[in-house]
């Protein structure tokens, strides 16, 4: 949207320029420079809030009336205002007002929270260089052209161009985890002309302008130019690229401080441009709710049509149409036929409009909003180590947690701890284990130390650590700590020399010559060091697949075997190789490096030796138990990981995702096979799958490459049918699927694929890294693990550990679903009960739109007499205990596929509502039929009739909920009995006091008169009993027939 507006702006504005000129430190350019085009830039304020104080009311009202239900009630309200209708506008206006107000308060509160968050971001302190001094100011006051000083571990306040850093080479290290999810440190460079500045004064003396493109959302693209004006010299122009641009949201690492100039601020930063408002995820419950609503709308319209038609039929004879006692007015007689018809139809619509539960949406919203606090409050999901509990970012999807069919999980950090521990190393085929080393030290010392020192050297070098072991990857931390156990302590990096304390407490020094950073294309990183003896060494570490091909000597085969073996055991492996470089080699490499920083391949080819370092990635506690529970609950768990197959598979075995009995299909390395091979393979799998009786014993392993081949729309395959379909078919039949070597985007693709399959299953994605964000956003429900703090915002729910998934799904999800399902069904039920008697009454009052109930009852039925019990029910109901739900994951299957909101259940509730309504109405009808109701012979009128029906209605509907309540806390007691009491007290007051301005006195003393009559009491008791009887009998029989545990469910699903 932003871009669109920007484009519009583009077209409309004459003075638009496609580049901007930034004056560093707001200094005027020297004369002779290009024409000065003043531009206005936004300040550095981030606005994520939707409303301001002023526009809240109009904007919020507009937003709310865009909802179909609210709009419907608004229309009804307006109809009531305009034409003469049976009920006063208050009856629909007041509930609507109530609903709108409650929603507005909720949204206002949420927006206030957003304002607060914005405020804390906008007011966080920033150091700005002004007149040669560092001035501390607030983030939102930052303007384009300001020179900013950022210290280590601080986050950049806006998009900056690096001028100089505390490192003498003018570089700085940055993590961009919160932006793109890559956790490695990236290096950014200052322009050579400015990198020498070290103090504020020097920076301030800089006289330069930056010309750059207008902001655009691509994180990796930036084109600009810096013009540096020196005294009486031609300005020096230097190109600027993405490597000079520090993005807002990234964090400075391993660099004491930097100076940089702001070029994009506030909403123009790349992060803000990339910030997409989260697309609204709609839950399945909401969809069925809307479907039911449409059905009820149809019922409403048909009711109105039936009554209008019958009215005409009934009025065919003029005596009925206009009996002498009830003449029409002239005005009415002269009305046009069509006009009259519409008028009558609308009047019936208004009379029956309450069948659409006005307060349902607001109650659902309240339930979700308040209910989500139970997740946040849950102590079981509180993690002691992190000091954090679960977090709910979207309350709209609570019940979806009870509907999950597919769980997509990331492996590293989600299933596993992502805490690496150094387990063993294998040097030239000899295996060493740290603990063993200590014991057997004496016997093999000499040989050993030698090897170890290499490892250690390498470790330290590659680790690139600072004085702490802060490092881009947990492997490196593990390595450094593993070496410490062996007696080699990494001390520090000083003047490009690494100091290492060896076993004999001597300090060894290595000069760090070059670091070639890790990237995901090469999948390895290298360093070149010079040891104290003057020898140049090239170390290279990386995944086995990228190291082995480059190894030219050494016992590659043994190492390879060991690597494989360890990978199978679920250990994470890392390969290291080194080569000693002659001085000439080194010079050549240097030459290449400095010249182009390209063609790195050459120098890494001839490596001498292979090491293998193995670490163990521990499974998170109870991960296996959780997965098992999820399986039992009927969910399919897929592991999507970037890891290699063996490791991932081992983790899967360890976490019981794959049982030993599972028959595994492996589709691997598709790039070496022709397409039709995959096709045959897939077919074979499918065939075998369909042959086997129980397909649940199949597991599938597929790698990213094969997957992309499968998913790629292939013109050749048109004749063969679609891979996609076959693949989907297989996947649906497998109980466990492992996808390894996945790119982040592929993860999202998989989720999308499953989501779009024909059953439209509900998916849940869980991951901790930023590379899982796309998958999490794609899935119906996204859950975030502990890492990726910023990225956790993208998830719908954040939980500290994988094991908490069990509780959030099996317990919370289950409860939310049960609760909301009952809520929705009950709302429709109670409104059928409410309105159907009114419909029946039309047959006995000459279709004259006479309301059965008093105005106050019509108005308050939904908003006060019957609203609180169901709301509280939907917050605290527990049909079975928490422990049972945890113990019996299979209970989760009972509510799978939206089982409580299917059409038969809906039909049952509606029929029950109609039945009850018929009982209310005809019960009262036969009781009133020509008989005296009192012992003093007086007769009751129509309002007593309506009040009798209404009293029975309120009691029945509330008691029906009481029957459905399985968990009676004091809250339930209070609310259920309280609301009945409230009804009685209200009726007494309403009829007992003359409300002059308000009431037409029609209800005066009606309720008391009714209560003074014995038969009225008896009939109220009778009618309530009869209405509840079918439901009680059904429940009792269900209980008798079905086994104990699932009784509530069996009874719900009929």
């Amino acid at each position, binding site marked *: 949207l932003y871009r669109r507006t920007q484009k519009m702006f583009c077209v409309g504005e004459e003075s638009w320029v496609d580049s901007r000129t930034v004056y560093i430190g707001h200094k005027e350019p020297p004369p002779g420079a290009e024409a000065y085009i003043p531009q206005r830039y936004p300040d550095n304020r981030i606005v994520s809030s939707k409303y301001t104080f002023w526009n809240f009311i109009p904007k919020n009202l507009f937003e709310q009336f865009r909802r179909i239900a609210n709009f419907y009630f608004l229309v009804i309200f307006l109809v009531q205002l305009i034409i003469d209708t049976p009920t006063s506008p208050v009856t629909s206006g007041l509930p609507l007002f109530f609903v709108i107000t409650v929603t507005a308060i909720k949204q206002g509160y949420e927006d206030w929270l957003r304002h607060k968050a914005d405020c804390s971001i906008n007011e966080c302190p920033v150091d700005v260089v002004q007149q040669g001094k560092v001035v501390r100011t607030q983030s939102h006051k930052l303007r384009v052209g300001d020179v900013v000083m950022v210290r280590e571990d601080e986050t950049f306040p806006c998009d900056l161009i690096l001028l100089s850093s505390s490192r003498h080479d003018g570089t700085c290290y940055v993590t961009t985890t919160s932006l793109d999810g890559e956790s490695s440190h990236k290096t950014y460079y200052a322009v050579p002309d400015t990198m020498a500045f070290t103090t504020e004064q020097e920076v301030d003396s800089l006289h330069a302008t930056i010309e750059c493109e207008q902001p655009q959302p691509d994180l990796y693209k930036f084109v600009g130019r810096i013009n540096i004006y020196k005294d009486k010299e031609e300005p020096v122009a230097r190109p600027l690229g993405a490597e000079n641009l520090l993005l807002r949201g990234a964090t400075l690492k391993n660099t004491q401080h930097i100076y940089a100039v702001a070029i994009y601020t506030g909403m123009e930063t790349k992060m803000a441009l990339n910030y997409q408002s989260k697309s609204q995820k709609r839950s399945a419950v909401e969809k069925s709710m809307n479907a039911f609503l449409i059905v009820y709308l149809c019922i409403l319209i048909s009711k109105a049509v039936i009554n209008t038609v019958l009215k005409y039929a009934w009025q065919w004879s003029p005596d009925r149409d206009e009996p*002498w006692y009830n003449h029409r007015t002239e005005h009415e007689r002269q009305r046009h036929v069509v006009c009259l018809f519409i008028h009558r139809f609308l009047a019936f619509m208004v009379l029956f409009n309450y069948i659409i539960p006005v307060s349902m949406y607001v109650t659902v919203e309240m339930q979700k909003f308040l209910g989500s606090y139970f997740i946040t409050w849950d102590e079981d999901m509180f993690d002691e180590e992190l000091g954090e*509990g679960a977090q709910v970012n979207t309350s709209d999807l609570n019940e979806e947690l009870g509907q999950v069919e597919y769980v997509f999980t990331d492996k590293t950090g989600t299933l596993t701890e992502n805490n690496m521990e150094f387990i063993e190393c294998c040097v030239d085929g000899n295996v060493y284990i740290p603990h063993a080393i200590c014991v057997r030290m004496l016997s093999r010392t000499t040989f050993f130390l030698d090897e170890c020192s290499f490892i250690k050297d390498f470790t330290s070098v590659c680790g690139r650590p600072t004085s702490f072991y802060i490092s881009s990857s947990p492997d490196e931390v593990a390595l450094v700590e593993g070496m410490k156990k062996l007696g080699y302590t990494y001390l520090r990096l000083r003047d490009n020399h690494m100091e290492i304390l060896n076993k004999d407490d001597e300090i060894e020094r290595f000069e760090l010559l070059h670091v070639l950073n890790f990237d995901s294309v090469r999948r390895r990183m290298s360093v070149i060091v010079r040891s104290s003896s003057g020898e140049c060494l090239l170390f290279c570490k990386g995944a086995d697949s990228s190291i082995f091909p480059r190894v030219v000597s050494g016992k590659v085969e043994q190492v390879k075997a060991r690597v494989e073996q360890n990978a199978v055991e679920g250990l994470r492996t890392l390969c290291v190789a080194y080569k000693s470089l002659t001085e000439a080699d080194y010079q050549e490499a240097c030459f290449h490096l400095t010249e182009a920083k390209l063609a790195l391949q050459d120098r890494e080819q001839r490596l001498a030796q292979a090491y293998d370092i193995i670490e163990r990635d521990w499974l998170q506690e109870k991960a296996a138990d959780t997965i098992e529970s999820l399986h039992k609950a009927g969910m399919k768990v897929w592991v999507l990981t970037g890891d290699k197959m063996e490791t991932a598979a081992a983790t899967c075995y360890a976490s019981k995702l794959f049982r030993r009995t599972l028959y595994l299909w492996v589709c691997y390395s598709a790039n070496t096979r022709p397409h039709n091979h995959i096709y045959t393979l897939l077919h074979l799998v499918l065939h075998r799958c369909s042959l086997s009786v129980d397909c649940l014993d199949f597991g599938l392993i597929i790698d990213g490459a094969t997957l992309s081949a499968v998913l790629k729309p292939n013109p050749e395959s048109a004749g063969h049918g679609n891979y996609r379909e076959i693949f989907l078919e297989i996947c649906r039949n497998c109980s466990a699927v492992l996808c390894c070597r996945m790119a982040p985007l592929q993860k999202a693709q998989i989720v999308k694929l499953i989501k779009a399959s024909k059953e439209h299953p509900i998916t849940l994605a869980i991951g901790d890294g930023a590379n899982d964000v796309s998958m999490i956003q794609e899935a119906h429900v996204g859950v975030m693990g502990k890492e990726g703090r910023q990225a956790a915002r993208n998830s719908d729910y954040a939980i500290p550990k994988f094991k908490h998934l069990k509780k959030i799904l099996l317990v919370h999800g289950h409860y939310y679903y049960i609760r909301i399902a009952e809520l929705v069904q009950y709302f429709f039920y109670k409104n059928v009960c409410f309105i159907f008697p009114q419909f029946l009454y039309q047959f006995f009052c000459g279709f004259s739109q006479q309301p059965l109930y008093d105005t106050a009852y019509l108005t308050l039925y939904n908003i006060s007499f019957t609203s609180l019990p169901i709301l509280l029910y939907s917050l*605290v109901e527990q049909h079975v205990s928490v422990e049972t739900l945890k113990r019996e994951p299979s209970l989760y299957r009972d509510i799978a596929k939206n089982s409580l909101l299917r059409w038969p259940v809906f039909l049952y509730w509606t029929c029950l509502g109609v039945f009850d309504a018929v009982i209310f109405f005809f019960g009262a009808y036969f009781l009133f*039929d020509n008989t005296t109701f009192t012992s003093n012979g007086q007769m009751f*009128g129509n309002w007593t009739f309506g009040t009798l029906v209404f009293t029975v209605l309120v009691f029945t509907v509330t008691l029906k909920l009481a029957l459905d309540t399985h968990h009676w806390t004091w809250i339930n007691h209070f609310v259920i009995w309280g609301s009945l009491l409230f009804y009685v007290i209200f009726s007494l007051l309403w009829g007992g006091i003359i409300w002059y301005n308000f009431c037409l006195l029609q209800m005066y003393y009606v309720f008391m008169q009714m209560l003074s009559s014995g038969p009225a009491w008896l009939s109220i008791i*009778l009618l309530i009993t009869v209405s509840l009887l079918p439901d009680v009998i059904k429940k009792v029989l269900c209980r*008798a*027939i079905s086994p104990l545990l699932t009784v509530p469910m069996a009874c719900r699903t009929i």
Partner: protein
Amino acid sequence: MQKKENQEVENRPDNTAFTQQRLPAWQPILSAGIVIPLFVLVGLAFIGIGVALFVTSRNLHVLEMDYTGVEKTSPCFSCSDPIKQKNCKCSLSFELDKLFEGPVFFYYGLTNYFQNQRAYGVSKDYNQLSGDLDYFTFFFSIVPDSTCKPYRYDVNNKPIVPCGSLANSMFNDTFNLYQMKNGVKEEVPLDGKGISWWTDYNIKYRNPSVNPLRNAFNGTVKPLYWSKPAYELDPTDTANNGFINQDFLVWMRRSALPNFRKLYRRITDGLPAGNYSLEISYNYPVIAFDGKKKVAFSNVSWMGGKNEFLGIAYLVIGSLCLVMSVVMLIIYHWRNSSPDAN
């Protein structure tokens, strides 16, 4: 470190029963041991109530007579002709072979009469009826209430008091009951007090506080169908005149259903066995809309008038409960005895 600890304390959720969803709760289970006795109890109680109601209802008498005069044999046939309707009188004779215990309530009934039509029901002005003189005069188009249309003003724009269809169509047949004793007509005293709701008579409806009452009605006209103005409804008794005339009040309380009875008089001492003659001054036309006019004599008990429905309904539901308890017993028994029951 300390900061971290504090933070931890801050983040830690409250460990209360409510937040952890562990509030102590009563979890009723509809098990056989509870439900079957409950059903038996409810069934027995309902049958008890049902029997009591049924017996009481049986002991009540209702004597209902149609006097519409549709058939030629009917004594009121001559009066039913709408042309010569004015002050037509007819009489209905009936015989009681045993004592009709008092108090006997004397109702008139109408059928197919839709007092519950919406337009009809709202057609009145509460302010007028509560005696507010401001609403007795024509005041632009605000007073009397526009709902009174088409019975708001007469042709001369004089306001109708009481206005509206409901008042306009007040039932105006009158009855006199005579007992035939040895060929001599002896009038049975009819008590017209307290036939309307106490609140209607004392609070809701008020006469304007003008003495004499007729002065209040200056400048107004009587409802079109009325033969006499409101202040002459009962000239003998000021407490039963004008808007607080009991017959008027009874009529103004709309009936719920199209077939209805309204209380006319009370006969406190009851009716001894014998021959009676009911003299009717037949004014109210109902044949045009296929209506029927009836009179009914009924006595009431603590549970109101004769209505067997309630008693029968209680009996049916009570028996149903008993049957259900037996059925449940069988099912439970069968389940417990079958070997594969879990």
